[in-house]
């Protein structure tokens, strides 16, 4: 699956599942950028076929509602939606 990487401070593996048209997703991405942490993101709506299915299957493990944005931190914490305070707290 093709993730884009944004460089920044290493706070572990931070993965953002997002939609290219979703404004809350954009805000989340900007917020992570402003925090200065490194992260990977993928716009699931821009994937096709098997890649899309595999992204959705992975997302499903964390968020069975499969909603966006979904942020997975270090393979242990999942934050659904643009929740600034929760994200900040989790990445302290």
């Amino acid at each position, binding site marked *: 699956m093709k993730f884009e990487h944004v460089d920044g401070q290493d706070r572990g593996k931070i993965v953002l599942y997002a*939609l*290219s*048209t*979703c*404004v*809350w*997703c*954009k805000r989340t991405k900007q917020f992570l950028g402003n925090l200065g942490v490194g992260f990977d993101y993928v716009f*699931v*709506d821009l994937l096709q076929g098997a890649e899309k299915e595999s992204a*959705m299957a992975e997302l499903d493990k964390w968020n*069975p*509602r*499969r*909603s*966006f944005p979904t942020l997975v931190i270090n393979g242990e914490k999942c934050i*659904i*939606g*643009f*929740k600034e305070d929760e994200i900040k707290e989790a990445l302290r």
Partner: protein
Amino acid sequence: MSGDAEKLFSKLDADARKSGYFLNPDSAFTMELVEGLLANEKRYGHQACPCRLADGNRLEDLDIICPCDYRDADLDDFGACYCALYVSKEIAEGKAKAEPLPDRRPVGRNERPQFREKKPGRTDSELSHPVWRCRVCGYLAARDEPPGICPICKATKDRFDRFM
């Protein structure tokens, strides 16, 4: 910002005002959503919610074509729809802020409004016409067929159920 987006924004804003709805007053945020609607129209052929993953098939997406079937309930409960294109009067006037909210769209396909089995609440043979209900805004029309476009929320004919 494209001219198409400006045009769609003006239309949505005018329609909203006429029918007692309000667009998000954060114009940068709203314009991004409008661009999202146009992007979805271009790739799917319909204006699916920018903040939900659309299928691309119109019937599959019918409940999330903007305005979605969940807008009014979310406005009542949270003061904004899921993507926050539409907001309450309070938020429109700047007295409160739109916050992200959970998606109430059923995960199971067959629980979605367009696939749920429907029976009219009551069928009264005394009625001179059947009554049709808009799933988006609840508008009722007593006529042989549902209207082509809902006069209140502009939803299309395929988003009406037989009500009586």
